[in-house]
């Protein structure tokens, strides 16, 4: 029975791992939705902390609902001072436990990030162009939202199975796949979610979103597989370089806008 994998009938409480059916689902499709991953009290705490963090982040320069995230991502600054629960979520034994289970090896966890999204997000994988991880286990992301999201209000859309080759590469060859107007043209699955639920997906998985309101808040925790070969190290270095470049571009843009 796989029904509980996506549609659990009740809160399963604290979970430190996936069951074998869930692991199989994640491996076959590249993602899984876990509802009520966080308890109601935790959802409330996350909400309070994120509101504080938004107040701090946008105290000098207000959040701009007109700038698409594709041009500039408006990240929320998290801190152990005013968002201690969120700040340490990557060390939470639930997320970390599942990450360890999936990689079954050493891994590298990253600090939880939060952003306020504006506009649609075109199809893309969270992975540098070169993929030297033949076993498709480069990294994973736990994504969760502070609002209820549906297919037409910004829920994450995933192309199931797209984390594996040659599908992953075939999608890169599809004309126009990265064009923002083509989000509807590809057969994605909308991971509709409520606060407290998470979408766990392989970083290779192609994903997108459409129709969300300006300022929808997404939090994410990322784990990378510890590199085991020269190829892996190069891929990781590429990822770091790419991340820094994106950060620099967006920071420069922010500075430029401040100066204006």
């Amino acid at each position: 029975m796989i029904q509980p994998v996506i549609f659990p009938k009740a809160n399963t409480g604290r979970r430190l791992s996936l069951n074998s059916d869930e692991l199989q689902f994640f491996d076959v499709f590249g993602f899984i939705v876990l509802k009520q991953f966080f308890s109601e009290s935790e959802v409330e705490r996350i909400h309070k902390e994120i509101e504080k963090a938004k107040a701090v982040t946008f105290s000098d320069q207000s959040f701009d609902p007109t700038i698409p995230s594709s041009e500039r991502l408006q990240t929320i600054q998290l801190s152990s001072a005013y968002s201690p629960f969120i700040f340490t979520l990557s060390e939470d034994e639930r997320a970390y436990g599942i990450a360890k289970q999936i990689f079954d090896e050493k891994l590298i966890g990253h600090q939880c990030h939060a952003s306020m999204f504006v506009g649609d997000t075109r199809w893309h994988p969270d992975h540098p162009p070169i993929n030297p991880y033949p076993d498709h286990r480069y990294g994973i992301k736990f994504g969760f939202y502070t609002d209820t999201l549906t297919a037409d209000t910004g829920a994450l859309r995933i192309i199931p199975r797209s984390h594996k080759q040659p599908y992953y590469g075939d999608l890169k060859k599809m004309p126009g796949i990265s064009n923002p107007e083509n989000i509807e043209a590809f057969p994605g699955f909308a991971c509709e979610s409520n606060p407290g639920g998470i979408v766990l997906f392989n970083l290779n998985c192609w994903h997108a979103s459409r129709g969300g309101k300006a300022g929808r808040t997404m939090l994410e925790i990322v784990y990378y597989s510890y590199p085991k070969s020269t190829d892996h190290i190069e891929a990781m270095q590429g990822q770091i370089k790419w991340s820094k470049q994106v950060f620099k571009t967006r920071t420069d843009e922010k500075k430029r806008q401040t100066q204006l």
Partner: protein
Amino acid sequence: MIHNITESSEIGDVRTTLTRTEVQYYDTFGFIILRNHFSKDEMKIITDEFNYAVELEFKDKPFEKDLPTSERAQCISFTDSTTPILATLAEDPRYYKIAEQLLGGEIIGSQGGGCLYVGDTRWHPDRVPDGRYKTAVIDKPKEYSRYSNHNFGCKFALYLEAVDANTGALRVLPRSHQQPFYGELRKIPGITDAENVHSLPGFVCATEPGDILIFNHSCWHASLGGKSGRPMISAGYYAYPRTEDQAQELRETYMHGKTLSRKYSREGKEPESLSEYDQNLNQCPLRAKWIEYKREFGYYDYNSESLEEELKEP
């Protein structure tokens, strides 16, 4: 630019080929929706003919709205004499030429069929599971080796009413026509259970009358929430076998088709319309060729009664 792919042609546009990008889309995902493949006027004719066929079919024994299709399919027969458009749909160049293009050459078509569906349809591909028959080539699982480009065959589906996620639209698992995905799905616990249609991340192929959906026979598909008696018209094509393994699979498929036809028909035998189709009264050359191909691959070698002998014990 691909964003036109599922928005497709203008109403009434007669298309007998797909663009290169559309073929790429079909090869990548295992299905494609062609919008407005038939004009509104054509749909009126098709619907009228279908309704007439329904009238004939259920004249003596009424349609049973509470009988799930999973227990017995309530099929509609098309004949050259009573429903000439529907009986020759598979021979329409808007169908068979696209099938030739997608299957990469010579094809074998068969008579189109109609059905009034009742209830949900569980996840399944339109291929016979390995080892179903005594004659199966079990040392070479067909899913792995017989069709290098995964093009065993394809189906054209035409819904006469608008269908969406909650009203019986076909759900497909994109890319599931290709290995190893196809085979991995078979191993998922409960995948073919009726209550698990919700549980897999299928893409809902919502369609309006006039749209057609083409999908690879290997593509896993299902449906959910349709009203009792929702009408669907389909036509299937197989790639002409090029190897003995492929020929073997086609033989098994014909055998399986006849088994199902007998099992699910109301009379426990094949519909008489099939024999009328094979008479090819209008002497259509295309149909004549396909009949010969079917003969070549054993379609006429099996009668319903002898099939039980060929079935493996469960």
